[in-house]
Structure formats: structure tokens, C-alpha cells
């Protein structure tokens, strides 16, 4: 499903060029659960942003479902992203002015789905993540765990084939973190591919495969026993 070849990302500062990613070669099959680990500043988030088409590589190839998308413009990327990828962020990135229900529905708003069907899907997914009783609350009125559940609901409501999670448990206590991981796991079992950046080795254990990054390079790739 995903194949990165010789992918580099560098930032040009005033005087020095910082290399964030250096010749990355990764591939991932459909429905896989991959964890990306590594110390701060190793390029995890940059990699995830590029995988999610939020950012573009400086050089190298990115094949998504067989197409080389490194030359795609913003509009084409947006289309691809909308149809295939859901996001979960460490800081949830919910819109404060919208209610829980509206935040989730937002992910469907930009798809061509009739509003009746939209509402049904939002209700279904809220039930599933157990946030239905808070449907009309604002994100600011929820706990961190509840907010992340909303974020998960928003990520899955459009039924993407791939979910990108950037330290989804980073702002949560362990029991809430566990909860979110369970959700991701069950999604994965239903066939959704997941790429997750995490610091926690315990949470990385939920993944089938773990990629270790160091200084912008892949240090090791190892398979995990799925618990």
C-alpha cells in the first residue's frame, strides 16, 4: 500500500541545512499496524506528516497504492488524503467552537455524503467509541481521554483504509491510553491500516511491526508478537 524509496526531508535554516529524514526506505501492506519509535528529534513526526501528505519530501519517491505521489499538487494530495487517510493527533486538534457531534461530522462534510447518512454514521461511530452521551458538549468540556476518543471517532468516521496516529496516547494517563490503544487494535482487526508514532514501548507492542528511527534514518525494523 505504501512504499517510500530514498526519501529525504531537509529544512533550510538561515545558515545550516537540517536533515530531518535521510534516505528512508519503508514499505507497508494494506491492513498492517506499524509503530514508529525513536528519540525526540529523530524525524518521527516529519515522517508521519509526509506519509499523511501534510508535508512534502525534499527528494525521493512516495508510492501510495502504487502511484508515485511525490509530484502531486496540494489539490491532488487533498483528494487522496480525504479518501484514504484518517488522522489522530497527540493534542487532539479538535475545533473548540464546534460540538463533539459537529467535530466528528466535519470529517464527512467534505465528502459527497447526504446529510441523513452522515448523521447516521456519526451516531454509529460515537456509540462505538462511547462518547454518544457527550455529543453536544464542546471539546473544552471533556477530559483528555474523552477528547481523544472524539478524535478517534473523527478519524474513522470516513472509513479510511489507513489511520495515522501521532503519539495518540502522549497526553493521556495510562488507563485512558490503554483504552485508545484497544480501540486502534480493534480497528486494525477490522482491516484498517495503522501507522502510529509513539514513545511507549508498551503501546508499540500493539503493532505487528516496529520501525526505529534515529537521526533521520531507519535504525532497525522488527516484527513484534501481537499480544
Amino acid at each position, binding site marked *: 500500500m505504501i512504499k517510500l524509496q530514498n526519501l529525504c526531508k531537509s529544512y533550510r535554516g538561515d545558515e545550516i541545512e537540517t536533515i530531518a529524514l535521510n534516505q528512508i526506505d519503508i514499505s507497508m501492506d494494506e491492513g498492517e499496524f506499524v509503530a514508529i519509535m525513536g528519540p525526540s528529534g529523530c524525524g518521527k513526526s516529519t515522517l508521519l*506528516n509526509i506519509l*499523511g501528505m*501534510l*508535508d*512534502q519530501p525534499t527528494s525521493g519517491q512516495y508510492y501510495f497504492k502504487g502511484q508515485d505521489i511525490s509530484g502531486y499538487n*496540494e*489539490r491532488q494530495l*487533498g*483528494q487522496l*488524503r*480525504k*479518501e484514504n487517510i484518517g*488522522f489522530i*493527533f497527540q*493534542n487532539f*486538534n*479538535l*475545533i*473548540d*467552537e464546534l460540538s463533539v457531534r459537529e467535530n466528528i461530522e*466535519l*470529517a464527512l*462534510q*467534505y*465528502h459527497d455524503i447526504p446529510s441523513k447518512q452522515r448523521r447516521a454514521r456519526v451516531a454509529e461511530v460515537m456509540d462505538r467509541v462511547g462518547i454518544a452521551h457527550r455529543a453536544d458538549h464542546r471539546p473544552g468540556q471533556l477530559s483528555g481521554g474523552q477528547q481523544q476518543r472524539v478524535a478517534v471517532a*473523527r478519524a474513522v468516521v*470516513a472509513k479510511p483504509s489507513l489511520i495515522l496516529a501521532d503519539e495518540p496516547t502522549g497526553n493521556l494517563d495510562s488507563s485512558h491510553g490503554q483504552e485508545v490503544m484497544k480501540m486502534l487494535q480493534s480497528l486494525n482487526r477490522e482491516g484498517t491500516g495503522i501507522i502510529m508514532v509513539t514513545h511507549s514501548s508498551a503501546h508499540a507492542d500493539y503493532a505487528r511491526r516496529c520501525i526505529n528511527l534515529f537521526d533521520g534514518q531507519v535504525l532497525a525494523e522488527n516484527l513484534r508478537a501481537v499480544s
Partner: protein
Amino acid sequence: MILSYITIALRNLIKHKLFALINIVGLTLGLLIFMFSVLLAAYEENHDHMFDKRERIYTLASKFAPTSGEAIGLYPDSSTAYGPLIRNRLPELEAVARAVHRIKQVTIDNESYYLGTRFVDNDFTRIFNFEYIHGDEQALDRPEGLILTRSLAQQLFGSTEVMGKTVKVEQSIELQVSAVIEDIAADSHLNSDMRPKYALGLIAPYHALTQIDKFTLEGEMGNNSAAIYVLLPEHRDQAWLQREADAMFDAHTPEDGREYTEALRVRPLILSNTMVWDAMGFPVMIAAQVLGLMVLIIAALNYTNLAAAQSFGRVREVGLRKALGASKAQLLQQFLIESLTIASFAMLLALAAIEWLVPLYNTGTGKAVALDYSQVLPYAISITLLVGLGAGAYPAYQISRHQPIESLRGGANKAGGSQWFRNILIAAQFSLSIFMLAMVMVVYFQNAKMQELSASFNKSDTLVLGRMDVEAIVPKQEALKQQLLNKDGIAAASYSNAVPFQSGGYRRIAAARAGDEAGRFDVSFVSVDFNYLSNYRQELIAGRAFDKQRSQDIFDDSRSTINVIVNERMLQKLGIASAEAAIGQNFHKIFEEKYPKEREYHIIGVVADSYFFGVHQPIPPTGFMVRPEDYRFLSLHLMPNKRQQGVLNTEQTWDALIPNYPIQSKFLTYYFRLFYRIAEGINAVISGFAGIALMLSLIGLFGLAAFMAQRRTREIGIRKVLGASLGQVIGLLVWQISKPVLWSVLIAVPLSYLAAGMYIDFYPESIRSILPFVAIAVIIAIVMAWSIVAIHAWRVARQRPVYSLRYE
């Protein structure tokens, strides 16, 4: 510490150049307008400060009756008879003096000039304490005395040592210089009239006027010719004088005089210079100050908005400072010092601009406004403090109130006050923009309309020679005309007692039938020569032109029937259906005490209506007659391509034929402009303020749009991650600003409709409908708002989502 705050403030300015520019330009404009309006008001209110007794000096103004047909309600002068009447009625008054201003021919050693002269009662010098170089306040106690100002003495004699020198007035009487006074500053009512030759130069005894004009010492009723000054005793006040003036008016004013002037108004001298505005019902000084203050408040609000928007970028800095131990008070202090730095910077720029503006204004208006720093500086400093602290308070409070961890985490989306507050700001900005735009357009098109209406007279190719009624010139009138007609560049010439826009001629009361008091109406008569109407291209629509061969066409005082050509308006008044039907009809003069003669007017021709008496009043019923003894003006129609030649030939011919009298020539444009100086003043004030306020509200809108787009950077990022396209994001933001914009349309439309209606009510002939202009203003404002917001949204939304998400 403070120094470091200022350094940070300056660095921030440099970092956000666009915002800094907007902030400073906006604030500078606001301060400039406010300071300038205060300066002008102070100047006008401190008028006549050179006269020690100015607090006790009052003038008697005339209040016109509604039946007078005058466009203004109040006139600064009143009839000459009221001076002696009030003097005799109230012996306790310290002094009363009339001053009649006339432009007279003054001859010194065979050199003649036309000079503005004030003919005054001898107590004039006891009311106004002049500074005497020679002589004293008894200068005019002798009937042949004369006072000159220093500059006039220099101009006429080349010296101020001119006591006892002889000055001949109107070639008929001789006066001797009995005093020379220092010039009076420009900020005296004696010098503030915008008309030429009104500045104080010559002061002659009232007695002299009785010898050269039809004036008597005891004065006349109904001439409104004199400024009447009254010096009140210490223990009396304006209300008392008003009561006494009312009683005197009732006791002495003849019944038919009251149809024109219905009362006298006692006014303090210090208000005399704003009288013109008051008379038009336009409180210009208050308006200027209120508008100035409004502009300043808008500018300060703009600053507040922009500063609040900008502070989002600094939430992290604040969090860090707090984490490092800064107290809330210290942070408040830092942000207030920043806004003070900007305000001071803006004030410096504003003062520099005023330095540049004041001489420009003085040249334009003939005033002498001065920027006196000893007075302005304390004021400027307190305004700077007020604006800096006032405008900076809200953003400073907003940003410093957060918990440090919140700020560090990025509470950007929580800062910035309520949506409600911002919507009100947007709506207010918008109402103002629409209002100002509509007003500017209405003023502009109304003026264009006036220009168009006045275009029936060729203003720039018509040269008008004045003072043709001087006794020594009258015998040479015909010779002058014939000689000029033979000269190159002059196409036509004709005499009259009035020229377009100069509001000359005279008025009589007439009716369709003799003695019909109920059907009476005012008629304006103009005395012309045979070619006048055709030379001015006023084409006949019926009947015939005046004919030299027919003796009845020339006015003869001994005959009771006069042949006249009338305008269409006259036909309406007479109830005659068509121009053809009017030919051969008569109408009648109604008896007036002053003009007792019976007259019958016989219509021989009809001309189309035109704005002969100016565009400021409805076209009156008008009659033209040939009456050579009235001629005061010679209108010369120059060939457009030989104007220079025509003017030169005119001057040469005049000098050869009438060497004793200087030529008095003006283009018709001059009379038109003279007439419009008041309207032009109002227009300049309205357009000036409107233009600046509009600019400010656009600046404000720009800031608000930036605020909106920036505040929602992260949200835009999220929406894009979820699949929103560029167009969808822009559409969302544009829609959001549309709500307050729609509110503002609801406020601005009726408001501008009302204000524009009031404005065009000043004019009898106005642009037909205001609504299209208001509609266009609404459309322009909305389109501008949308495009500003759309541009900002586009700038933020086209970035890769990762940058927007990172933005806090």
C-alpha cells in the same frame, strides 16, 4: 527593564512590518485628525483675543423671515438705523458703533486704487483697542479723519510717517490720516472674511459715507448693511441686551420690513467668525471636533483589534516569561509600554504632519493657525498616554491573564475575547465604511450636478468688467463697448446690472392682476442691454428679442408699461399654460412703500429657465428689461482660442479710455466660485473626514480579517487535513464575516439615507435619488470585505497543512 521592553517592542515592529505599518499609519491618521481639529477649534474659539474688551462686545445680527426667500437664516449685518436707535434707547451702553464695509476708489497723488474701507461711528476705536503707531482713539472724532494700518500705509505711501496726508475717496471727498495702527492678526473677525478686500486696512468716519453714498447719519431701515457693535457695561449680559433689542425692533421696524428681517439676534463677538456656518445650520466647529474625536476612537479601536490579533503570535513568549517568574503586573506593563511606544511614534509622525499641514491650511484659508508647542505639548503627551494605554489595555489584559501552562501549550484559540464582541466591532466598522462611502458619493455627484446646472453659462470664456456704474465711467460706456468689439479676441459684449451667480438685479412684488394682494409673488428683475440674452446663449422659446428700433423696449421711468422678457418659472406663477400664450400678456407691480410707482409689465418674449441667480436656490420668476441707467457690469465673451489676446486688448483699451480708474475685471468663474465658497467648505470638510474615516475603517477591516484568518489558522489546518479544499475554506471564512456585514447594512442604509437626504436638502436642485449610491456603497463595502477576508484565508489555507497545524 523598560529599555528592554522598548527594544522588544521595536523588534516586534520590525518582525511584523505589515502590522506595524498598519498600526502606525492608522493611529497617526487618527491622532493627526484629532489634533488638527482641536487646533482649529482652539484657533476659532480664541478669535479676537487682541481686543481687551472682547468678552463684553456683542453684535446685532439679522434673522431672516421665512418669507424673505433667503437661503440662510441669519445674517451678520443689520440695518444702519438700529445703531443710533439702540444707542439712544440704552444710554448705559459703554459704546455703540456701526461699521459699513464698502469697496471704494481711493486716490493718493493721482494714483487710484480700489480698497476695502470700513466706514465706522467714532466709538469704533473705543470698542476695539488698537495699537497706535501714531494718533490715538480720538482719530475719528473729526469727520475728515482716517485710520490706516501699518501695512496699508507702507503699501500706499511707503512709510508709516503719514499723519495729516490727504486721501481722496471716490474722487469727491478728502480725508486726512489721523492715526496709523499696527496690523491686526488674521485671527480677528475683522480679517477672517474669506471675500477679497475685506481685511482691515482703511477705517473712515461714517460721516464720509453720507457724502459719497445714499447713507444718512441716523441710518436707514431695510438695508442690512452695517455690522453693529455694542460694548456692554460690566453688570449687563447678553440676555438683557437681547430683550432690549427685541423691544427696540418691535417699536421701530416698519411692518413691511418684517417680511424680510423678522428679528435681531444679539451675538457675542467671539462667535462672529463661525456665523456663516451657524447661519446655514451647519455647526461646523462642533462637527469638526466630534468627527475628529470619532476618527481618533476608530483609530484606537483598530489598533486594539490589530494588537489583539498580533498578540496571538506571542502567547508562547508570555507563557515563557511567566514560567521564568514574570508577574502579571510586569507583563501588563510590558505590553502597555509596547503600545505606548507605538502611540508615541504615531504622535511624532502626526505632529510632523501637522507642521506640514498648518502652513498649507493657512495659505488655503487665509488664516493664521500656529502650532505653539508650549500649549500643544502637554496636550499631545496626555493624548498619547491616553491612546497608548487605552488601546493597549485590552490586548495586554487578554494576553497576560492566561495561566503559564495554558500559554505554553498554546492557548491561542482561547484568547481574543468573545465572538460577540468581535462581530460588533466588525459591524461597527462596516456601518461606518458604508456610511462614509455613501456620503462621499452623494457629495461628489451632487457637486457634479451643480457644475452641470451651472454649465448653461460659459464661465471660463466670459470676462466681466465691474464698477461700470461709477459716475465718471457711465458716459464712456458706449464708447468702451464699441472699441472693445473691434478688438481681436472679443466676440461679443453686453451691459447689465447683474451677471450670472452674482445674485444682483433687484426684487419687486408682482401679481397677475393689478392690486391682487392674495396672488402676489416676488419677481427678480435684471436690467440688460439688447444683446445680453443672446450673448449669454439664453435662447428665446417664444416671442421676440429686445429691438433697438422700438422705443417701448427701452425702460422709461415716465411710462407705466414696461416691455419685459420673462422665464418659464414666471409663466407658472402667472398661471399661463404655454410660452406662446404668454406673449402679449401683462402682469402688475404690487404697491410697496419704498417703490410706490404703478407699473404694468408687458411680456414680449419667454426664455428657458436657467440658474442665473445661482444653483443654491430655486429658480425665481425672473424678468429682463432694457434699462441702461442700471448698468454695472460689462460682460465680454472672449473667443475661446484667443482668451489671452482678448484679456490683453481689454486692459489696453480700458487704460487708454478710462485712465483715472483701475480696471476691475474678473472671469465669470470667479463669481461662481465666490458663490460656492460656503458649499465648497462644507464639501471639503465632509469629504476630508469621510475619506480619512473610510481609509481607517478599511485598515481596521484589514486588521480584523487578518485577526480572523490568523486566529483560525489551526482550524483551517484541521479542516484541510479532513479534506476541505481551498475554495471550501475561503468560502467558510467569507460566510462568517458576512453575518456582521449584513447587520451593518441594516444600520448603515437608513443612516446614510437620512444623512445624505439632509445634505442634499441644502440644494434646491438635487440628484434625483440617493438610493443607488447607498446601494453601490453597500456593494463596494461588501466586495471589499469579502476580498480582504478571502485573500487572508487564501494565504493561510494554501500552505501545507502541517504548517497550519503547528501554528499556535
